[in-house]
């Protein structure tokens, strides 16, 4: 008889059954009663007609935007209670960061919100630069801003297509993908990768924008407003879409703040909060744009806010193209940022710096800590860093906007119809890569 036979797996290793049991208990469902009954407890049934049904939607359900699991208690078509279960895409990014240098962790941020990876790169680099006190040249800042806005459009475009597809209009999904394809071509030209761009470097950028890239961006900024106007013509007066979206998932401005939601969800409920305006980073205080606000707080308001944000992003992009100065794209600081490839290949100091930078990394002062947030497409994306004086962070904490926004979902779902469910999940625009970290 081995030791394994005597070992009680039930309490220690069987995470999954216990997790499910706790979930169903929160749902106050008969699944939980069954568990209690199995243990021989007396069970009080408050559903004598047996009209309730527990439905597990996700994590593999096509409309849950990744791997979100919603356990819902249904009475006919009405959702009586909803419990969300996240963590199916958990990769332990915050812990991983502790064993990477600051620069090494930057590509991991691509995998947070994979719909606007550029903003995540920029957010991380800005936080590290603040921690280590690195000055970034102007041109790099303008390019970062330009590309962040392009990635915001890319994310909002996917949201638009998917939200409409959730409502049943499939064609728009493919129309938006046509323009996301243009955006991906731009990212490909500028950063060398379509999805995981990893273009930002601590202290600047990996490479400058080529003339082809600038021409592509100019072309996109020129044609896109007309495209949006065409879609608005289709949707803004579409009776079925408005009936589906208006008055669904209403959250007041107090509620969104209490639920801790982020980004466009806040602004659709009348909370004027946008990091770009309130704590301007990069050059956002030098460009002219407005923060679209809606008061209604329903799915339709979120739709309008995101459409307006795309238009504002185009405005910012055109201004970036106009104001962008010539100059270097990386800080001229050998200890704090990569030297150019020219230096690495043709000078000994450059090679040494490159080696040291890759091996040891930048070493911010011991005990320094910083929180820096950027307005990513989904909302406030913040990085909290603590340094212990070595090349890798002592502690990283990521304030992910999707995670905050998902908190409002359970609240919105209660009392909604089954047909609203996918629309509600879509309307808060979660990306589970970011929520699960």
């Amino acid at each position, binding site marked *: 008889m081995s030791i394994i036979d005597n070992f009680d797996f039930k309490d220690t290793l069987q995470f999954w059954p216990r997790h499910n049991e706790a979930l169903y208990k929160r749902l106050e469902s008969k699944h939980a009663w069954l568990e209690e009954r199995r243990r021989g407890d007396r069970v009080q049934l408050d559903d004598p007609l047996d009209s309730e*049904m527990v*439905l597990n939607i996700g994590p593999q*359900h*096509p*409309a849950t935007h990744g791997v979100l699991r919603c356990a819902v208690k*249904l009475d*006919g*078509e009405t959702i009586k209670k909803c419990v969300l279960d996240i963590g199916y895409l958990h990769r332990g990014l915050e812990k991983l960061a502790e064993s990477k240098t600051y620069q090494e962790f930057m590509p991991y941020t691509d995998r947070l919100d994979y719909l606007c990876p550029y903003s995540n790169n920029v957010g991380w680099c800005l936080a590290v630069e603040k921690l280590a006190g690195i000055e970034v040249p102007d041109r790099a800042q303008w390019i970062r801003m330009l590309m962040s806005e392009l990635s915001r459009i890319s994310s909002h475009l996917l949201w638009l297509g998917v939200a*409409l*597809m*959730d*409502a*049943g*209009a*499939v*064609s728009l999904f*493919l*129309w938006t993908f*046509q323009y996301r394809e243009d955006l991906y071509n731009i990212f490909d030209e500028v950063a060398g990768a379509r999805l995981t761009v990893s273009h930002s470097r601590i202290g600047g950028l990996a490479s400058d924008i080529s003339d082809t890239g600038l021409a592509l961006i100019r072309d996109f900024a020129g044609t896109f407003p007309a495209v949006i106007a065409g879609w608005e013509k289709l949707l803004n007066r*579409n009776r*079925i*879409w408005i*009936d*589906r979206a208006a008055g669904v998932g209403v959250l007041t401005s107090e509620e969104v703040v209490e639920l801790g939601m982020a980004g466009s969800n806040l602004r659709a409920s009348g909370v004027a909060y946008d990091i770009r305006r309130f704590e301007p980073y990069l050059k956002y205080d030098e460009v002219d744009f407005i923060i679209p606000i809606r008061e209604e707080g329903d799915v339709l308001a979120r739709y309008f806010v995101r459409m307006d944000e795309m238009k504002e992003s185009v405005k910012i992009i055109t201004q970036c193209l106009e104001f962008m100065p010539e100059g270097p794209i990386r800080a001229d600081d050998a200890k704090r940022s990569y030297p150019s490839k020219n230096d690495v290949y043709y000078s000994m100091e450059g090679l040494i710096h490159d080696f040291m930078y890759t091996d040891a990394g930048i070493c911010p002062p011991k005990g320094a800590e910083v929180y820096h947030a950027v307005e990513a497409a989904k909302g406030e994306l913040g990085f909290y860093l603590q340094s212990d004086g070595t090349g890798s962070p002592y502690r990283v904490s990521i304030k992910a906007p999707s995670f905050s926004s998902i908190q409002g979902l359970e609240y919105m779902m209660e009392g909604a*119809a*089954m*047909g*609203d*469910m*996918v629309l509600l999940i879509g309307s808060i625009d979660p990306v589970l890569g970011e929520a699960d970290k």
Partner: protein
Amino acid sequence: MALHWYWSVLLAFTVVMFFLSSAAILVYAERKVSAAMQNRLGPNRVGPLGLFQPVADVLKLLLKENIVPYLANPFVHSLAPFIMIVIAFSAAALIPFAPGVVVADLDVGVLVLLALTSISVYGITLAGWSSNNKYSLLGGLRSAAQMISYELSMGLAVISVVLIAGSFNLMDIVEDQAGGMSFLGWNLFRNPIGAILFIVAAFAECNRTPFDLPEAEQELVGGFHTEYSGMKFGMFFLAEYINFFVASFIIVTLFFGGYLIPFQTLLISAVPSLDGSLLLGAMQIGTVILKAAFFAYLFIWVRWTLPRFKYNQLMTLGWKYLLPISLVNAIVIALGIAIFRMF
């Protein structure tokens, strides 16, 4: 005009073959039309222009394993697709293609049609119930509720047509629209509200967008046919396409002059030898197929443009708007006919 029995059998065989092949063509057409709307190419690999794609699809479905879910009711699970397909083909028997060219020339044709469309809900509901899957069950229940709410306004719209024609026979209803040079006499112009009501109800009956709640792929995965595989799924698929093509034919028959060629009387007065000839019959068959093809295109067009209704909005539309309007429409037409007869 009674046909000899072997002509009826031959005609029935031809109609079944026609609808089977048209379903294949419609699948291809739907994929091509949706592709054109979405800036895609659509099927273009199997055969010239991808024309053999439906054949390849059917072959794939035939070779797939037939899976009956654990704890499902195997008999009902197999019965449901058969109900769907049998009803779809039975309804096709009532369509007049030309004078005398109809499989079942019944004096209660309209009633049989309404009865058949009501039975097809059993196919979906039983499929949803027998699959032992919660998504399927929801789809089946939605379908039942949807059919009940649309059957009434559909029936009332048909009744307004029957009142005008004074007959339940579909052939008589078509011949009744021959006035106004076979164009202005269409029930579309005599009974426009009824026509719109019937088209909306036909969309709902066929479970097409914006009324495709029973299968609502975004919410209910596949709705009632989530648990079907292989040719059983193929039968649902086939029934869906035959259903909406038959519905197009019914719309044409009831409201758009059926097989009547527009300005037919002018044509016959110009070429008197055409009257009663085989050529005219062939032209009439072509006319009804063309008209139905337009409505089949409308079904596809709407599907790839509009979002889907929500369940409660569908109920509201059915009971609060369509039913009262169709009731008033039927009463107004009945009064109109009574006054017309009085003087």
